[in-house]
Structures are given as structure tokens and as C-alpha cells.
């Protein structure tokens, strides 16, 4: 038995650091072992059982039947298995995860999927600033896997992102894909100011077309055909549905940049 259901006993007075509570870490542990697992709460450590009622599941998943908005680092360094949170989560959700699947039914705070290297993080609600980006002081942001945000995203989405796919079904804030190194970002709604600021490579797709973004002055319109790579990319994004479902049938216009950082990135504006 490696599946567990966690039910919040009461909302903690201080923020809780849930790092270390992953499917891989809990695999093979007894109920007593799981109950004793330490988690940080403020400047103290608590046993997991002090915060949650814990019961076993027949499936292999870790299910949090709770709103974890005051819990940070949910799925931090996750390396396999499935975690599902029936409510919201705090900051750093899915940070540095390398495999597995983390599903958040509510919102996520800042730095969701930061430095993610593999696996999938799905947030049914909104994410805060710096999702799919880098930890402070680090050179590379998200470097693999998939982040899917069904709601809106805050500022600096995909900052320094290097690889992988990050999708926002709704709007994205300012400085979308800033300093992006490579990878793919797709936005279903509108973007804030300065999209692609300082991006070196990578693709940012706007499913809502030219109205979704105003390319900055350091981007140049592309005149060349890129139909082949667009079809490959659009068909891959289409599997996520929503605003991306019909991308492959859309015309595109591209803007290349940021020419201040080499100009090998592209903003792709799809229009029916």
C-alpha cells in the first residue's frame, strides 16, 4: 500500500513547508512512519499527523483533501507517482520536480514549477508570479516537463525557462517569457506588457492572435514560412484542448526576437 489520503485537521497558524512529502518518499512506509514524517511549520518541525488525518488508499496516489494555500513546496523535488490536491496550494508547488504528476484543483502561489525538469504540473486555477521560472539567483528556469495552468498566470511567467512546455489557458502577466532561453510557452488569453523581454530562443504561442500581445520594439516581423514546425508544435499543443485545440488549423504571424539577445526566439500569433 503506497497511496495515502490526507485530510487537514485545521488551518495552520504559520506557513507549512511540505517538502519531502512525495509519492517516492512515502513508498513502502507504514502508517506510523508516515504519521511521524517531519514538516516545517514556522521555525519548528511538526509530525505530519499533527496537521493531517491520514488514511490509506487503494490507489498509489497521494491525495490531499484540503485547501493547502498555506502550504509551500507541495510536490517539491517530486520524482514520480501522482499527487492530487483538491484545493489550492502555496508557493513553489512542483518546484524542481523531475517526474510524476501533480494536480492542483485550486490555485497555486508564486514560483509554481520553478526549475521543473520533468513530469507534469496541472493547476486548474490560477498561478502567481514567476511560474515556470527560476529560483532566485539561479541561471535556468524550467528545464523540462509540462506546466498546464487552466486559469491566469502572474508576471514573469517562464522567466529564464530553458526547456519543456508551459501553457496558460487564460491571461499572462507582464514580462511573459522574459529572459527565456528555450522551450515552448502557449497562452490562450492576453499577455501583459513586455512579452519576450530579453528572450534568447524559444517559442511563445498566442492562441488569441494579434490582439493578445503587442510585440516590443526589439522584435521584428518574420517574412519566411515556418509551416512545418508550426504544424508539429500546434498538433502537440492541441492535445491540451481549450484555446489550443484548433491551433493547427490557424494561420500564424511570427515576430522574431528579442534582437537585443540574439533574436532566435519567436512570438507566434495564431489567428483563425
Amino acid at each position: 500500500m503506497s497511496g495515502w489520503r490526507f485530510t487537514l485537521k485545521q488551518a495552520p497558524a504559520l506557513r507549512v513547508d511540505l517538502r519531502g512529502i512525495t509519492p517516492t518518499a512515502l513508498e513502502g512506509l507504514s502508517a506510523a512512519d508516515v504519521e511521524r514524517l517531519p514538516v516545517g511549520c514556522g521555525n519548528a518541525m511538526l509530525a505530519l499527523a499533527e496537521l493531517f488525518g491520514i488514511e490509506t488508499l487503494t490507489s498509489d496516489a497521494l491525495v490531499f483533501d484540503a485547501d493547502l494555500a498555506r502550504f509551500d513546496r507541495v510536490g517539491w523535488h517530486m520524482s514520480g507517482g501522482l499527487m492530487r490536491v483538491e484545493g489550492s496550494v502555496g508557493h513553489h508547488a512542483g518546484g524542481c520536480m523531475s517526474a510524476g504528476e501533480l494536480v492542483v484543483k485550486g490555485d497555486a502561489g508564486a514560483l509554481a514549477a520553478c526549475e521543473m525538469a520533468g513530469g507534469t504540473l496541472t493547476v486548474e486555477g490560477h498561478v502567481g508570479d514567476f511560474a515556470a521560472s527560476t529560483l532566485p539567483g539561479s541561471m535556468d528556469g524550467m528545464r523540462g516537463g509540462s506546466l498546464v495552468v487552466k486559469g491566469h498566470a502572474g508576471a514573469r511567467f517562464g522567466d529564464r525557462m530553458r526547456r519543456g512546455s508551459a501553457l496558460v489557458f487564460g491571461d499572462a502577466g507582464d514580462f511573459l517569457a522574459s529572459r527565456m532561453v528555450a522551450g515552448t510557452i502557449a497562452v490562450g488569453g492576453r499577455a501583459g506588457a513586455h512579452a519576450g523581454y530579453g528572450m534568447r530562443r524559444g517559442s511563445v504561442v498566442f492562441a488569441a492572435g494579434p490582439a493578445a500581445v503587442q510585440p516590443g520594439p526589439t522584435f521584428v516581423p518574420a517574412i519566411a514560412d515556418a509551416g512545418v514546425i508550426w504544424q508539429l508544435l500546434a498538433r502537440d499543443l492541441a492535445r491540451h484542448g481549450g484555446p489550443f485545440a484548433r491551433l493547427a488549423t490557424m494561420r500564424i504571424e511570427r515576430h522574431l526576437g528579442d534582437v537585443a539577445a540574439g533574436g532566435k526566439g519567436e512570438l507566434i500569433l495564431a489567428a483563425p
Partner: protein
Amino acid sequence: MSDALLRNGVTIDDSFAEAFPMKATRIVITAHNLTWARHAAVAATGFATSVIGCGCEAGIERELGPGETPDGRPGLAVLFFSMSGKELAKQVERRVGQCVLTCPTTAVFAGIQVGEAIALGKNLRFFGDGWQISKVIDGVRYWRIPVMDGEFVAQETTAVVKGVGGGNLLLLCRDTDTALAVAEAAVLAMKALPNVVMPFPGGVVRSGSKVGSKYAALSASTNDAFCPSLYGLVDHSELTPHTRCVMEIVIDGLTEADVGAAMRAGMQAGIAIGVAGGLLRISAGNYGGKLGPFHFHLQKLLAGGGVE
């Protein structure tokens, strides 16, 4: 000849074709339309009739509709065969670099996903002179190389699998006209099958060879036993005075079963033409079992059997 089988007047030898293991890969070439995909595929599979002198054997396997290609454009599946993975990698890279990258509107993708990876666009990307861009989509890396009609998109690698080369049929006919007609019909029937190519011009070879030569420097020489021009001159001629033209079809396939199925289809097409159409006998090239481990017995194939 005493154990020969007679079908529609055609003698089917109690013999077998002898084939050998090869390394193989499939690539998919797409383009703005089928015409340009075919230009690229024909060029890439040119001078690829025999590993004896070409480094690889290659051919167009089949046309692909827009629904069958990664980018939704028309394309062609092309099979390459070589004697080693290293040589195959060299040939694929050269041919794609010179014949596909250069051809207007084309893109190239791996046609086999599982197996040892060899470079497809991995090194060709340097043609981009620093402007090439890598794009990883669903775990697969593609290279976008700027060219004068836009960009050339090439998947980074393709996969190598074990293949079977050297399946063959010898079609012994009354004269040139009937031999060509029979061979063309057989090739047409074989081309309808997947996973095989007939690498010689039009799928047919008139210069069938035997292993070895009187000249030490040559590894192969003319198959004198089946040369009508040597009838009466060589004591081991396999021909009769009525057999004035012989054509061979060589088949390379991804598996034994594929080669066997193609040989069966070719024989059936020939038998349908029958002795009335000028096909007198069907035989196959073998070297006493010394050349390769795959033996395709003609009569067993016709009976629906497999291979040894």
C-alpha cells in the same frame, strides 16, 4: 529440376533465395506537394542499388498522405539498408544532406522510432551557421535550419533496426519483351506491400551476380549460369535454348516475413502471366547456404509457408 513445381505452365524451382542480415532505417520525407517530396526521395535513393558499390541499398517504400505524416503534408517513406550501422549512418547523413536539405520545401522525419539512434538532422544543423534552432516537441528534438525558402526542419535522429537484404527472384523468360513485362508486374505487386524496397532501377536487375570472380580484386561477378549469352559456353548453365532473357528482382525488407511476403507476391504476379505470357521458370539465387542465414524456399512460399 526433378522436384520442380508447375504453376500455370511456369516451373518453380525447388530452390531458395539466400538473404543476409542488414541494418535498416526508414525516413519520412515531406514537402509542399508530392512532386517535390518525390524529387527529394528519388535523389536520396539514387545510386543505392547494391551495397557492393553504393554503400547502401535504398528505395521509396510508399506514398504517405497528409494524415500519415508528422507535419500534415504529403510525403514518402524511404527505406535505407546497409551492412553496418556505421555505414548506414554515413549514407543517411550524406544523402539527406545533399538530396533532401537541398530540395525545395522538404522536411525529414524518422520513420522508425525504436532502435539505436543515428543522426538525421543532428549534424546537418551546422549548415545553419549558428542560426539553427533546436525545438523539442513531445520529447522529440527537431532542428530548424534557415534556408532560402524558409526553414528546413529535420528530426535529430532516426532509429536503426535489423533488416534482411538480398531476397531475390530469378525470372527466366522467353525473350526481352516478356521478361520486362513479367518483372514489371512482379515489382508492382511487391510495391503494394509494406516494409520492403526493390533497390535496383525499376526494381529489376539484369546483371545478377555470383559470389567471387576469376579476378582476385572482385568480390562479385556475372551470374554466368543464368546468362543466355553464355548458353552453350559454360558447362553449368541453368538455361534452355528457349530461355533467352532472365531478370532478377532483389528485395530488402525490415523482417524475414516482409521479404518472404514480397517474394510470394512477386511469384504470384508472374504465375498469373504464366507460360503463355513468356515466363518459363522462376528460380532464385543462393550460394549453398554460405552467404546468409535467411533461406526463402520458393515452393514453400507459394504454399503459404514461411522461411528458414
